[in-house]
């Protein structure tokens, strides 16, 4: 698991990460989202014991990132922002080198490398020089490298960037499969659809600070409010809004549809359906109006920017 408490990093006078606290349980994915330069990479580097925190502490896979730096690095698989492959090496040599660096025995190195290369559809390119790999292949190979030593914690920076949709699907499937082994994932990405699909928890970082965190539902509820449902009927509504006003808060309506906000859809919706049916109105569809992570993210960023402007003008 990953635990961080008030993790801070200052470069000379520049505050890159400001009191970041995180807790990621085994078998879950945390998506760390934020604009470029927000402090995501520095946070990941501190969690992988590459950079030492200026203050605060973190434990990864049970080890302290400062005291047990080597054990942390041995327990973590890292996909760096830039895949950084050795272009003159062949994939087999490349993976063998990293396998040895992680202390894997010869047989295990070979078996793991072949299995992962097959898993990501790269077996055909085992003997190719990495300079000949396409962008997507390089990204997949970098992922293979990160998973090679079978780490309990994986920190992946933009895991599917530069990949075609099919390859990206392969990667997401692999992550979901690995979650079954109680592995812990921290993903930083700008792909919000992917984050919404994979992440159990989301943390949004801006200017080094975590400005919002929680599950998607929690964030959506907090930022956008209760879920919105859309009811479509056969024919016209005929004053239906008034008839259900005691149950839900109607947000808008048209000739044959209306939208309402509801705190507990699983309780309210069945009762509402019964009432509409009693009124003799035929329901065509009742579906949630989808709230995307993008909506939530943009709203959070906008609110934080407004707060900052207000704070600056107050000063």
């Amino acid at each position, binding site marked *: 698991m990953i635990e961080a408490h008030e993790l801070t990093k200052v470069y000379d006078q520049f505050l890159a990460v400001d009191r970041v606290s995180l807790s990621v349980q085994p078998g879950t994915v945390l998506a760390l989202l934020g604009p470029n330069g927000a402090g995501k990479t520095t946070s990941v580097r501190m969690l992988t014991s590459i950079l030492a925190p200026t203050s605060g502490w973190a434990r990864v896979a049970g080890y302290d990132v400062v005291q047990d730096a080597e054990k942390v690095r041995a327990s973590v698989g890292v996909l760096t922002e830039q895949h950084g492959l050795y272009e003159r090496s062949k994939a087999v040599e490349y993976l063998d080198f990293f396998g040895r*660096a992680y202390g894997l025995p010869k047989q295990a190195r070979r078996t793991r490398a072949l299995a992962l290369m097959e898993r990501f559809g790269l077996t055909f390119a085992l003997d190719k020089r990495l300079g000949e790999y396409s962008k997507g292949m390089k990204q997949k190979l970098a992922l293979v490298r990160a998973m090679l030593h079978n780490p309990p914690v994986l920190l992946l920076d933009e895991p599917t960037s530069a990949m075609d949709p099919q390859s990206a699907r392969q990667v997401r499937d*692999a992550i979901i499969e690995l979650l079954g082994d109680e592995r812990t994932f921290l993903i930083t990405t700008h792909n919000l659809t992917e984050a919404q699909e994979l992440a159990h928890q989301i943390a949004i970082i801006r200017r080094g600070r975590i400005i919002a965190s929680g599950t998607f539902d929690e964030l959506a509820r907090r930022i956008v409010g209760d879920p919105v449902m859309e009811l479509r009927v056969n024919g016209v509504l005929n004053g239906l809004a008034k008839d259900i006003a005691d149950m839900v808060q109607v947000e808008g309506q048209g000739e044959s549809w209306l939208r309402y906000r509801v705190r507990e859809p699983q309780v309210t919706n069945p009762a509402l359906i019964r009432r509409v049916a009693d009124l003799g109105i035929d329901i065509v569809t009742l579906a949630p109006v989808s709230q995307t992570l993008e909506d939530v993210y943009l709203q959070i960023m906008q609110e934080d920017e407004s707060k900052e402007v207000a704070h600056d003008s107050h000063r």
Partner: protein
Amino acid sequence: MTAIAKPDSSREAPAWRKSLANALLVTEREVKDSFRDWRILAPIIILTFLFPFLAQFVAGQFTDFVSNYGAEIIGERTIPFLLMIVGFFPISISLVIALETFVGEKERRSLEPLLSTPLTNTELYIGKTLAAMIPPLVSSYGGMAVYLGSLVLGDLAWRPQPMLVLQIILLTTVQALVMVTGAVVVSSQTTSTRAANLLASFIIIPMTLVIQGESAIMFLAPDADSPDGIGSLWAIIFGMMVVVGLLLRVGNSIFNREELLGRMIDGFNLKQIAAGIWRHIRWGDLRSTERVDAVAWYREGVAGSLRRLGLASHVTVLVVLVSILAGIYAGLQPQYQLGLPRDIGMMEVTTNLDMASRFFFGEQPVVMSILVQNWRVLAGATILAVFTFGIGALLLTPIVYVLLGYLLTQVIAAGYSPLLFVPAVLTHGIVEIPVILLATAAALKLGAVVTRPPANMTVGQAWTQTLGDTIRLWMGLILPGLVVAAVIEANITPLVVRAVLGGG
């Protein structure tokens, strides 16, 4: 997928063996990579297998040419000189490989995956240093072997002095080490190979001067044909080994994850650095930064700077004691004794002292002359220390103590009481000697801190903090101490000396 792996510590090899194996793992990969680059491979092949024959041809032609004019000795000495050149050309590639392997990897962003592995900073550093050295050294040794073989078996039938050949091999090796370890220091301060290549002139230029010096020595040294090798080349080898040792330490402290990834642009904000140093001089170590009074500044600030001198002050005292003993030892050697007259009158002594004083400080031995003289030596030692990792501080100021020890023995050998020294030295020395020790220790610390910065500090942070400490010590203790010592030396010491010697 497979079950989660845990770091296995049950069957670990001894730490040093594991570290060596890890370092060699990095070396192996990088050497393989170098040999796949034709830009490195082509010069290595040419310099190993073709250049030695060219050198042998030149040696033959040159020997024939100079022998026509009766200058056979120049021809003879050209042969080992060309051996050195044959060895040096390939190792110049080590600089290119070193820059490539350190800053090149940083530029290609392939360093971070490597830094994410459990390999330690030292393992990575050793591995990469060896990787930068092995291909050029193999080429260099190979080239020298080819050249020697062609000389021994060819028309020249030259029989080399084994010790001279050993010296050239050692010189080649330490030169490669200096270039590679220097390149690591340069690489760590830059983020691009372009910038690193520009900074590499700080390595190339001194190295070229060293090679020129070595060449001159090989032609001109009186012991050029000695079976024990050329004495001054041994001195160069030793000196360069010291430089390598220091550069290795600097490299090892600079080559760490924090320094490598913390520096993203080659920026240099002089204003910000100066402000940081000034902040440290003024506020550093002070419990309260709201109001600074002189007492708090001395009690907390200057005391903090003194505490941080730590080992440097112990080393300085030790070196000074050794210098005095060395002076005494030299003074006891019959061949170095001055043989001072035993029946010299006290008036003559004081007159000589006056003459000496006028010689060093001008006609009027005023406070300012003494102050400037002492300041010049200590400031010079400080500046020299910065460029010599502190060694300069331990070379310049202790010379005074060597002379002191030497003169003491001469005075005693002439039959005078050693107590004669007391008024001349200790009257002002009671202030001056601690000040000199302090300035020397501060200079040593300023130069040496880059070789081992304190934990949790980058080299840059440690150096700027130590510079702040040095300036603070100069402002608070050294300069005031030198002024007091100069006032005593100019006004009180002569009176005490005359009183003791009875010169009136």
